[in-house]
Structure formats: C-alpha cells, structure tokens
C-alpha cells in the first residue's frame, strides 16, 4: 500500500464523523449553556441536537452511492452496509426521543452523547470486513453499553446489572479475540475475504474448529444467545429503561449483521451442514445447536417470569434463536430474511421497552401491577398490544412476516436439511404466544388494583413516538415488500 487516500477515507467516514460531532455538540451544549436549566429543558435541547446529528448522518448515507473498499477491507461501503447504518441512525433517534421524559439521571449530556457514540461504533461495525476493526468497534460498542446499563446511579440493580454485563462481556471478548487470533494464525490475514480465500480447501483443520467455536462463543454473548445469555435478564431488568430499549434493539441489529458477515464471508468454505442425519462438521452445526438451545431455553424460561422486563429478556433470547436459524441457512435469501427479521424485531422490542419506560414513574415492573392498564392508559396499552403481538408473530404484524420469511428460507436452504430446526422454531413460537398473551391478559382483562385506578399521564412526545412505532409495525406487517424490496435491492 503506497499511496493512502486520506480524502477517500474522510469521505467514507463522513456519516460517522457527523454523528460524533453531534455527540460532542450535545455534550458541550449541555455542560455550558444549559447547565443551570431544568432537567426537562436540558433533555429536550440535548435530544434536538442529537437528532440533528443522526439526521445529518442519514442524509450523508442517503446521498452516497456505489461500492467502495478502503484499506484492505477495513472500511467497506455498499448499499447493504448503508441500509444497516441508516437503520442504526434511525434507531438512535428513537432511543433518544424515548429517553426525553426520563428521570433516572442528572447527567443528560453524557447520557445522550453515549447513545450517539454507541451508534458510531455500530456504524463502524456494520461497515467493515476486517477482524481488527470488528474487534475494536465491538469493544467500543460494549463499553458504551456497559456505561449505559449502569447509568442509573440511584438504583442498586442498575449497578449490579452493569457489573455482571461487564464481567461476562470481558470474558466473551477474550474468547472472541482468541478465536480471531487463531484465524489469523491459520490464514495470515485479518481481512474476511482473504481469510475465506486462504481457507479454501474442503478439509477442516481441528484448529479452525477451535477458532469457529471461540468466535461463536464471543458473538453469542453479544447477541445474547443461550447458553451465553446469563447477562441478559439482569441487564434488561436493572438498566434504566431507555438504555434497555437501546441494548435490546440497536445493538442486536449491528451484532447480528457483523456475525453474519464474519460467518458467511470469512468462513464461507467451512460451513458444513447440520442436517438431521447428514451431519458434517463446520460452523453451521455450531450455530444450529446454539439456535436450538436459545429457542428452547428462552421461550420456556420466559413462561416462569413475573417481571415484565425479565420476560422480555428471555423472549429476546428466544428471538436470537430464530435469527440464528436464518444464519444457519446461510444463503443470500436467508440473510435478507434475517435482516428483515432483526429490523422489525428491534422496532417491536424498543417499542415494548418504551411503553414500560412510560410506566416507570408508576413503578410498574411486576406483571401483577399491569392489571387493568387498558383503563388507566388506553393509548399505551394499545401500543403494547401491537408490539407484543408482533413479537409473538401474529399476522398481519411485522413480526409474523419476519418469522415467516426466516422459517421458509431456512427450510429451502440445502433442500430441507434444517427441517428439524424449523419444526422446533414453530413449536417454540407457539409456546411464546402463551407468555405474551399472559401480559396482554393482565393489561386488558384483569381489573385494576383498588389503590391504582387513576389514569396514567405520559408526556405527549413519548406517546407520539410510540404511536409512530406501532403504526410502523402495522405498516411493515401489511406491506412487508416496502422494506424487503429495499433490502433486496441493496443486496444485489
């Protein structure tokens, strides 16, 4: 590499730079001009600047076109990465808007800028095919998420959750780095394309298998797949609600996308197969096992939960299993289905946490305290209704089509060899309907408790954002081709 085009690098990283500038501006304004203002003013002004940064990044992404690869695959820009990056910026806007009315912290500027910085990390993660940058941005993302989890300093649960998340995350980073170093040792390259080329042969080295298992463990922690899920229930329950919403949505999108990139691009030759009686070793088998365990454990453990957030956490583990099913199929169509699934899942999960965030002031977390919510807050209840049914996969909501496409593509791939996994997925999603409906029963059927009968007031902005998200879930369910076409075009 003789001449390095710094200008090209600058142009490719403009969206990230815009977002980082937005974060700095938010922080500076909050610490200087707005220092002595009321909490609500600070949050509103901060959210406005943060949203400006996100919108600028989205505009820059929308204006860019074509394909480009810089620094040996370190920075990759194509329509697909831009689509993911735009979705990440959009989710950052939603996360910022949903946290405007919260009361858990006095450090408004730091909080909002951390959300933006985490998004910067995820954008780098989505736009790279280089193990070094993947690891650095993954650590960058995790570090921001640890801090966001522990941001509510008045709550012991938040600190405990952050510590657990940090310790488990540190372990998983160790595994991931070990796996990556083995890959480098075997192929002499950290570029995914070159790794795939160097691994070319059909024979599978035992060292490569060790590397695959370690990489899957590392990413399995990030996407909260069982049996690497131990941090998730505590983090989802203990973290401040807007942070939990952000962790449950945006970070899933970025982690799943890069997981799929590493597996499908970097280890393309080492896939193997996971057919019921036609098993051959490779990463598909490992993913299939993790997917099956996640689906079973997530959905069965969710039944026993009494806290709504823990329930959502276990259901997220189950959903990670379904998404891994799309990865195990490893075809272009299944990747398309996986991206559709993860985007719609993120929307519904963030919405569900948004509703819980609105109820936070009322101290609602236990399933029991949701009793009769439909009479106290009809709009919020309806939004929750839409989000939960979408998570359960009821037509005509977005979640149904996500599941449908993933299952169909998984079935089609390799002439039906993943049938056992698809059947398991269908059975466990029937189980999931039970616990989602349990929450809805509390909201719609059960009478409110005597001492909590008055209406719940939520800020207009919060309600409006939730309604827009619910409308999007319905729209993407009624017209899934809107998003699917976009993803399809981006992949070609």
């Amino acid at each position, binding site marked *: 590499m003789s001449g390095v085009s710094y200008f090209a690098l600058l142009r490719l990283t403009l969206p990230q730079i815009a977002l980082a500038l937005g974060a700095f501006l938010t922080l500076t304004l909050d610490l200087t001009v707005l220092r002595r203002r009321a909490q609500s003013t600070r949050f509103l002004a901060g959210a406005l600047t943060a949203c400006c940064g996100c919108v600028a990044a989205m505009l820059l992404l929308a204006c860019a076109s074509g394909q480009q690869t810089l620094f040996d695959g370190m920075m990759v820009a194509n329509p697909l990465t831009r689509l993911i990056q735009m979705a990440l910026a959009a989710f950052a806007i939603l996360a910022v808007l949903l946290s405007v009315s919260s009361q858990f912290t006095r450090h408004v500027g*730091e909080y909002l800028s951390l959300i933006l910085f985490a998004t910067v990390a995820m954008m780098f993660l989505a736009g790279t095919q280089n193990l070094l940058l993947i690891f650095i941005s993954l650590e960058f993302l995790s570090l921001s998420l640890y801090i966001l989890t522990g941001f509510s300093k008045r709550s012991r649960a938040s600190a405990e959750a952050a510590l657990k998340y940090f310790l488990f995350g540190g372990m998983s980073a160790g595994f991931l780095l070990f796996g990556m170093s083995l890959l480098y040792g075997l192929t002499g390259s950290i570029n995914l394309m070159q790794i795939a080329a160097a691994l070319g042969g059909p024979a599978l080295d035992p060292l490569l298998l060790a590397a695959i298992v370690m990489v899957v463990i590392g990413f399995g922690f990030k996407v909260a797949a069982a049996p690497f899920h131990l941090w998730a229930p505590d983090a989802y329950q203990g973290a401040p609600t807007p942070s939990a919403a952000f962790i449950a949505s945006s970070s899933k999108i970025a982690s799943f996308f890069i997981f799929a990139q590493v597996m499908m691009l970097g280890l393309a030759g080492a896939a193997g197969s996971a057919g019921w009686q036609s098993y051959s070793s490779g990463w598909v088998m490992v993913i299939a096992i993790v997917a099956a365990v996640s689906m079973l454990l997530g959905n069965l453990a969710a039944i026993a939960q009494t806290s709504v957030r823990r329930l959502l956490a276990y259901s997220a583990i189950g959903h990670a299993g379904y998404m891994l099913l799309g990865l195990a199929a490893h075809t272009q169509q299944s990747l398309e289905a996986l991206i559709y699934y993860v985007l719609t899942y993120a929307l519904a999960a963030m919405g569900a946490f948004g509703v819980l965030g609105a109820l936070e002031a009322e101290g609602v977390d236990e399933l029991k305290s949701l009793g009769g919510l439909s009479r106290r807050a009809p709009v919020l209840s309806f939004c929750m209704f839409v989000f939960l049914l979408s998570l359960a996969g009821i037509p005509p909501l977005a979640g149904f089509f996500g599941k449908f496409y993933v299952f169909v593509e998984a079935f089609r791939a390799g002439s039906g060899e993943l049938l056992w996994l698809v059947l398991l997925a269908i059975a466990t999603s029937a189980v999931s309907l039970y616990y989602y409906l349990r929450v809805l029963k509390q909201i719609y059927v059960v009478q409110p408790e005597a001492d909590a009968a008055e209406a719940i007031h939520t800020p207009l902005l919060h309600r409006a954002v939730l309604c827009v998200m619910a409308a999007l879930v319905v729209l993407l369910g009624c017209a899934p081709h809107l998003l699917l076409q976009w993803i399809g075009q981006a992949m070609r």
Partner: protein
Amino acid sequence: MHLVLFFIFGALCVAGALNLLLQRHPINSALSLIVVMTSLAVLYLLLGAEFLAAAQVIVYSGAIMVLFTFVIMLLNAGSEERTHGSKMAYLFGFPGVAALLGLLAFVFLSRSSSFGQAQLGEYLVTTADLSKVLFRDLLLPFEVTSVLILIAILGAVALARKEH
C-alpha cells in the same frame, strides 16, 4: 537461549497472574500485576518487538501501575472479604476450564504445523516503520481506539460523579 528465557518469563508471568488472584490485599495484587506486565514485556522483546516491549514497560508497568497504587492508597482499601463461591463453580467451572485448556493444548501441539509464520521484528524496527503502520495502514483502528478511550473517560466521569 531464547527458549530458556521464554520458559523462565512465561512461568513468572503465570505465577504473577495466579498470585494476583490469590492475594487478599489490593496492594499485593497490584504489585503482582507489575510482575505480569514486566515479564510480558520480556516476552515481547524475545519476539523481536523492541518498541512494544519498551512501551509496555513505560506505559503499563510505569504509568498505569503507579496510578493503580495511588488509587488503592487514596481509597485506603483494606483486605477483601472472601466468599466461598458457588458450588456450581467448583463442580462444573474448574473441571470445565481444565478440560478446555487440555483440549486446546492438545489441538495446538498436534496441529502447530498449520500455523503460518508471524513476522514481527523484521519490518517493524524503527519508530519510522511503526509510525508508518500506525498512521497509514492502521489509521482507522487507531482513530476509532482514540474515540473508545474518550468514551471510557466520559463514562468514568459520569459514573464517579456525585448525584445531587
């Protein structure tokens, strides 16, 4: 000669790490961390990475460890209270770790031929070479890391500041 030095300092490194975990008083743990860091620096030197070794000694064994000891002394941290740990850890954790280590060691030893050759010392000798790598080939990871460190500072301040 190389191999002998590698074994001596490798063993010292592992012993330091174990001592770090077993010591009750934070100061003792911090001092064992210095042993770990310094022996790692020697291992880097054996691989031919002089700059990395020097940076390791200056940054880790020097600056960061001094900060560690300062903080521990300022906080006046006493010796830690031990819990016995969960039964699960003893039943599954230790055998699991042992099995994993055994498996990995076996795979490494039996398949070490399939690893490529790493060249560290040959083209990374002078500071000029290093800066070429750092500011040209690896410019992007370098910049991303700098933002990462900024986040760490931001988070540390936000988490440590008093809530009024």
